[in-house]
């Protein structure tokens, strides 16, 4: 999983550089996010502008991480959704629980 820390303005801003979040790297992404949340960086903005594909494993990893962030009184916001990835968020209604900007 290729994740770049691009800023800390009002939270941790992460750019996901992989083109896909799927069964191959979803667990790795989840673990990276949980590590940040455990370290107190629980206000996260995920920039998904480079991600062209996501499957249910990828969505599951994001939902799990969101739950943990909220439990720690934080949140995960998402930006840069590309067309097909956005359609996956809306069909599964995840656009209702994530703050998408």
């Amino acid at each position, binding site marked *: 999983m290729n994740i770049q820390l691009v800023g800390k303005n009002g939270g941790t801003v992460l750019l996901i550089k992989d083109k*896909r979040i*799927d*069964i*191959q790297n979803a667990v790795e992404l989840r673990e990276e996010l949980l590590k940040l949340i455990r370290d107190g960086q629980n206000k996260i903005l995920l920039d998904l502008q480079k991600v062209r*594909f996501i*499957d*249910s*494993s990828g*969505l*599951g*990893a994001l*939902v*799990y991480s969101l*739950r943990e962030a909220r439990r720690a009184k934080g949140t995960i916001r998402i930006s840069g959704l590309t067309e*097909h990835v956005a359609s*996956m968020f809306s*069909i*599964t*209604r*995840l656009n*209702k*629980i994530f703050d998408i900007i």
Partner: protein
Amino acid sequence: MLSGQEKDGDFEIEFSFYPSPVDIRKFAKIARNIVELYWPENEKAGFEVEVCIMEALTNVFLHAQNDKPVSEISFRLEKQLNKLIVRVFDDGRGFVLAEQLAKKPDVFQSSGRGLFLMDSFMDSIKYTTGKNRNELLIEKLILGSKSV
């Protein structure tokens, strides 16, 4: 392993492989490439088929084999005019599709969206259990086929 044939613009092709996340990703991409080749004007269909193949193969990889050591996965793609037919085989205990589809995924759950996505993106979905193997049959009508 891969075998198949093409006739009058239609085709059938069968894949079998020892399942791993890397290969699930690889074969789902190949399926998308095939859909894009035959339906070049329908890029969305290629994406939706790739999602469905990922989900179907992931389900076999994670669930269908039960306690048995994971054996080969095989799946077949068939094009009949403007219809894509996907069959995914498993030799696990099987499940009752209607029961699984009736479980509407809670928005906060971190798994269990695979069949829901397949049902959303495809036009028909059936699952039959058999003595030697089970078959998931999903079909999608796709517009934008190249003329033959």
